[in-house]
């Protein structure tokens, strides 16, 4: 697929930079941090989904052998004890009420985890149990109990053209985002208006390294090691919660054992920090597998779409109402609502869009960022409905997409940036690979297409980075982008090596330490290449310029006469090792050149989200299925996914992102999901919650990395870590309808749902 010219290290098949550490067991994660005198924390969690706390008595636990500190609501004085993104509603431990099964009530720090667990049993908590809301519908009922009797503190950020939001707009509703463009009267120009409803399920992230943090106080200095995707926002939030100066908080982020979105903002950290302060000892707070499930999940959703089209398939107008199940605390729900609301049009041309997205509170685990960030929900609904509309109008689903795609460079909506991938190219690739245009389908088999869609790069994210060159030509990147498995250390060391025209072994990616590392907003939103990458390119070129200007001064000639090659300056046939030039001028102890890079999208009120999206992340997918009409069983015979890397910095890393995301989506499509009975999570145990295994792969499973070359990142690159999860569920549902005529509109697509849909097709007389 590559059309670009070969470069020195970019695109090479050489192993990842983190390969040796990870295959030998030498890689160190936050779970491996072991400090002298370190205590272990465990949390007492609510057994009730909704209850008032009448009393909490921890005096017996405090006396238990090995226990050094116990935290309850009585230890929050002097703190701002609640945290959150836009809305500060989640307490470190419950204050007045508990709002879901698993809500922290108290925590213990002890010499061993076992002593801490045993001490938890001695904490006496009295509850007054309250009525519960387990679903979106229950929460919106007029008679439903209120999760919050008074509104927690929160903000609504500035929005640009067509976008607006309101916090606490209705009962049990954290936040409502709305986006409008064009005139509602446009619907009158549509020949057909279709209204359909879709239901989206809820995954747990299932990162194998749990939520874990270690906190240590030394007089007024707080040091935190955390498995965290956004160390600087974490530092800011801890400073606010603990009323502690930001300069006296130092956050380290070792390698992260995955996150998929879950490890943003406060998770294990506040309890560790508070217990460390009370005990005067370092405290490790490492959650269990079940506690992961009680801390964060994806958003289940109901999506209602009203779509107007012309008889020839031209899209005219779309209204939508999305209800996100946000769980008991707001977490990132308002941000997910922005993106779900904004992305529901998909990569198509419309004359009118009116979309509302609500964050509904329920007595369940708080939902937060999850790979796809609202785009997975909207791609499921939109790409299903587009297929349904095509079939209703007897238009080929491939054609209706091609007919309505935004063109390369065409703005997503008024005031927005243009598409930086050619949508037609990707669709043709997956259609070709799966054999979409072959006329004969075997009995019971069908093929479906889908085009998943989201923006990438976050909203208005600033990024700063530093690149240093040492006397001997060592290059050091100080950068806040965390290595969470996505391969950022590999990509960024390659980019710097390419710019300095040297082997990648010269480049080191320094450990993250907020005292030293330049500011970054976080490793999320597929922003590493398109946001931080742009800053990195600036820093590298600035550092390189200093080196070249220095060399030109030493050699008394224009920079243009010189070539840098592996830390040697070449001028025609002359060779000048830089090390000697540097020591000749700066002395035998040497010097360092330092380049700094900064990038931030411009603030722009014409853009709906106040700055134009940096990039667009597209996941093209095609699925072939066989449906057994007797059992409703769906066999996924073949799955093709394709993302656009713009330029593949490391081809295997790109492939791994697409394939890993697609397999997550296979689980969501066919069997995986958190099952709630009312407000009780039934499949919380590892043996009960099924994630995809190697044996769940389709026999034919292909990922194709495109390199279209239009990305804003270095060398034309783009983010692609989320694209692969976006199209899979709708491609499968579309393939099922193609195979047997049955349309499934809720996930996961179980045999029961397929059988029931097949029965409905037959009509009442035949069932």
């Amino acid at each position, binding site marked *: 697929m590559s059309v670009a010219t070969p470069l020195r290290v970019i695109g090479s098949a050489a*192993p*990842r930079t*983190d*390969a*040796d*550490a*990870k*295959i*030998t*067991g*030498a*890689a*160190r*994660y936050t*779970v*491996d941090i*072991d400090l002298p005198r370190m205590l272990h924390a465990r949390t007492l969690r609510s057994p009730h989904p909704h209850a008032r706390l009448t009393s909490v008595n921890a005096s017996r636990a405090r006396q238990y052998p090995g226990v050094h500190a116990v935290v309850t609501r009585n230890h929050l004085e002097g703190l701002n004890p609640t945290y959150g993104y836009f809305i500060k509603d989640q307490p470190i431990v419950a204050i007045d009420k508990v709002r879901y099964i698993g809500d922290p009530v108290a925590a213990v720090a002890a010499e061993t985890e*076992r002593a801490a667990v*045993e001490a938890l049993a001695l904490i006496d908590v009295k509850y007054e149990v309250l009525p519960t809301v387990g679903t979106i519908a229950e929460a919106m009922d007029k008679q439903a109990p209120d999760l919050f009797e008074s509104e927690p503190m929160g903000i609504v950020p500035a929005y640009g053209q067509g976008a607006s939001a309101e916090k606490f707009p209705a009962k049990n509703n954290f936040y409502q985002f709305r986006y409008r463009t064009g005139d509602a009267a446009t619907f009158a120009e549509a020949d057909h208006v279709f209204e359909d409803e879709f239901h989206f399920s809820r995954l747990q*992230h*299932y*990162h*194998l*390294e*749990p939520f874990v943090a270690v906190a240590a106080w030394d007089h007024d200095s707080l040091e935190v090691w955390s498995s965290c995707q956004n160390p600087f926002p974490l530092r800011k939030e801890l400073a606010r919660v603990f009323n502690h100066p930001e300069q006296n908080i130092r956050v380290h982020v070792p*390698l*992260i*054992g*995955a996150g*998929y979105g879950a490890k943003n903002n406060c998770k294990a950290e506040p309890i560790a920090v508070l217990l460390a302060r009370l005990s005067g000892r370092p405290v490790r707070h490492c959650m*269990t*597998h079940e506690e992961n499930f009680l801390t964060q999940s994806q958003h289940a959703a109901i999506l209602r779409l009203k779509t107007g089209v012309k008889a020839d398939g031209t899209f005219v107008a779309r209204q939508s109402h999305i209800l996100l199940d946000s769980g008991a605390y707001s977490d990132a729900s308002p941000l997910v609502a922005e993106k779900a609301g904004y992305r529901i049009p998909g990569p198509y041309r419309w004359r009118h869009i009116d979309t509302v997205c609500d964050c509904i509170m329920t007595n369940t685990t708080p939902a937060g960022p999850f790979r796809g960030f609202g785009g997975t929900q909207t791609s499921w609904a939109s790409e299903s409905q587009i297929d349904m509309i095509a079939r209703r109008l007897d238009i080929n689903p491939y054609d209706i997409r091609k007919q309505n795609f935004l063109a390369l460079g065409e703005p997503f909506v008024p005031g927005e940036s243009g598409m930086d991938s050619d949508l037609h190219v990707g669709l043709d690739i997956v259609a070709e690979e799966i054999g979409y245009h072959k006329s004969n389908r075997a009995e019971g088999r069908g093929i479906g297409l889908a085009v998943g869609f989201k923006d990438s790069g976050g909203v208005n994210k600033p990024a700063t980075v530093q690149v240093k060159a040492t006397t001997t030509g060592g290059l050091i990147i100080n950068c806040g982008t965390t290595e*969470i*498995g*996505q*391969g950022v250390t590999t990509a960024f060391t390659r980019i710097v090596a390419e710019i300095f025209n040297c082997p990648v072994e010269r480049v080191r990616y320094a450990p993250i330490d907020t005292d030293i590392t330049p500011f970054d907003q976080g490793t999320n939103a597929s922003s590493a290449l398109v946001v931080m990458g742009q800053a990195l390119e600036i820093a590298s070129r600035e550092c390189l310029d200093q080196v070249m200007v220095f060399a030109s001064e030493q050699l008394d000639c224009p920079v243009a006469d010189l070539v840098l090659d592996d830390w040697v300056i070449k001028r025609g046939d002359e060779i000048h090792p830089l090390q000697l030039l540097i020591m000749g001028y700066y002395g035998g102890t040497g010097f360092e050149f330092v380049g700094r890079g900064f990038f931030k999208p411009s603030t722009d009120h014409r853009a709906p989200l106040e700055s134009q999206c940096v990039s667009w992340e597209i996941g093209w997918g095609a699925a072939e299925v066989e449906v057994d009409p007797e059992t409703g069983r769906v066999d996924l015979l073949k799955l093709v996914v394709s993302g656009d890397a713009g330029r593949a910095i*490391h081809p*295997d*890393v790109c*492939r*791994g992102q*697409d*394939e*890993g*995301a*697609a*397999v*997550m989506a296979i689980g969501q499509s066919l069997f995986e999901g958190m099952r709630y009975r009312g407000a009780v999570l039934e499949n919380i*145990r*590892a*043996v009960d919650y099924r*994630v*995809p*295994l*190697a*044996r769940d*792969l389709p026999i034919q*499973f292909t990922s194709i990395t495109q390199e279209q070359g239009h990305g804003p990142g270095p060398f034309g690159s783009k983010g692609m870590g989320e694209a692969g999860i976006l199209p899979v569920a709708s491609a499968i549902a579309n393939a099922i309808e193609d195979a047997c005529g049955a349309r499934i509109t809720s996930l996961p697509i179980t045999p029961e749902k397929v059988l029931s849909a097949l029965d409905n097709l037959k009509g009442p007389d035949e069932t």
Partner: protein
Amino acid sequence: MSGDTVRTIRFALNGRAVAPTVSTNLVAADLLRDQESMKGLKIGCDQAVCGACTILVDGSPTAACATFSFMLDGTDVRTIEGLSDQGALHPVQQAFRNNSAFQCGYCTPGMIMLAVALLERHPNPSRAEIIEWMSANICRCTGYKMIIEAVEAAAQAVGELS
């Protein structure tokens, strides 16, 4: 505290004789990580489901999180730290490296030990056998295909060595 009877056990850990003193309710994962510094062993679900903590006990892949330490008495135990031979990577490690068969790396030591056990029993497995065997462990990052390909490559390398 019940279950705290202490005893000394003896086993071979990566070819070296060790004789730790353990309480009878200490699990192998904690013994190996905390007392023997085998931090390459990772604990994921802690319920013998995910396989991140896979070690080899007398050649059998074993969930260290669900194995009592005393059960290691008299056995031969191997962890990821003992796999390379004086700095030379095991063919499975080499294949995981060359095929980028990892992302976050948290499941990787367990996956590699699982694959080593397979190739010691079946030096020439079919792709279907590899898929079934490797389905014992969970990787949430890679989508497995690159892991399967790495095990195939390792099998081929082992075949060429023998």
